[in-house]
């Protein structure tokens, strides 16, 4: 077995764990159907850097420190295009967020407190029904 086999194993395992950046890289690859070489070209980094990148903690796009953390990761792992890395993480986050649950409008319509009620036309009563009612009154 190669010397770095355990590192490759760790990266493969990290790909299934949302804590690690490897998860986002793999999601992006499955979304865009690009291979490792394509991803390395996109991020302007050597292919070997993808393993290092994957074992970093995934920065939270909603956090204030997101930009700083992405820049730190990029400079640490030899990724020249930190902006592209940030874009990738945001894109995956947005897609996963949309997949995770129903759209807000759908949620609103499902909830019982919804003020939206569909309007219906009032049915015209048949003439036979009216005649029966008037007979009863008599």
């Amino acid at each position: 077995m190669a010397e770095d086999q355990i590192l490759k194993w760790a990266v493969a395992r990290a790909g299934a764990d949302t804590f690690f950046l490897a998860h986002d890289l793999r999601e992006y690859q499955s979304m865009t159907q690009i291979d490792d070489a394509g991803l390395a070209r996109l991020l302007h980094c050597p292919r070997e850097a993808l393993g290092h990148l994957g074992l970093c903690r995934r920065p939270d796009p909603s956090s204030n420190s997101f930009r700083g953390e992405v820049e730190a990761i990029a400079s640490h792992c030899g990724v020249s295009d930190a902006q592209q890395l940030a874009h990738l993480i945001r894109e995956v986050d947005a897609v996963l967020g949309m997949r995770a649950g129903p759209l807000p409008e759908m949620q609103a319509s499902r909830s019982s407190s919804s003020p939206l009620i569909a309007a219906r036309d009032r049915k015209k009563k048949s003439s036979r029904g009216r005649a029966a009612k008037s007979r009863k009154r008599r």
Partner: protein
Amino acid sequence: MHGLSSKGFVNRLIAKSHHLAIAVPSRLNGCILGPYLNNCLGAVVSFILVPADANFERQIHSRLLDNDPTAPGDLCREHLKPIERHLAARAYAHGVRDQSLVYDATVDAVFDYIQHPAKFDANQSTLLGYLKRAGERDLINQVRRDRRLRRGEELHDDVELSIVAGNKQADVEKIRRNAEAEAVGRIDTERKLSAAMSNMGGTLDQVLFRLLASGERNTAKFAAVLGISNLPITEQRRVVKQHKDRLKKTLQRREEKYGG
């Protein structure tokens, strides 16, 4: 001093320690051995004062506690290999030959620490020691799970229960023979599995194959490894089936070629 008279010993010290910037009399820089002595003295002093690993461990632990996003990668590069070697030796000593169990236990121990660094108390032990012990526990769990899956233990349990229940000696012997046959079969399967895995190209295939061989039937687990959890479930099933069929075909071809 012994150490300084032996270049090899000093070189070992240098290799084992981080360089400390220390003041060396400037007149030494003038002589041929100046830079060498500078290195040696720096190494010796740093080795005596602070072992290199302790420095690294203290820094990495504090970086993980501070949520430094690059710390997990640095820890993995530094400690995965020694932990894996340690666990492989332990596994070998106990008759476990399946390298993927060792890999999984190593990664489980390190990932668990990365995600919960506060669990580690630096006053109790070194980080490497802590991770090795955690890895050993994970390895025991992996081996137990593996054995349960192969039903070996259940048969042994049958023997023990029969003895306790006072069953006839002939029945107990019959169950024991079954258990032995099961164990032989398991070793044979293990050997085939290792041979097949050494033929598998990528790490992804090895992880998938390991899941397949362990009798895992949950599509979600395969999908997580393949990174297709985002796809609709029908699509996940289709892709997972494709990969399973491909792996089975690879194994079948290998068996035809080498005769099992």
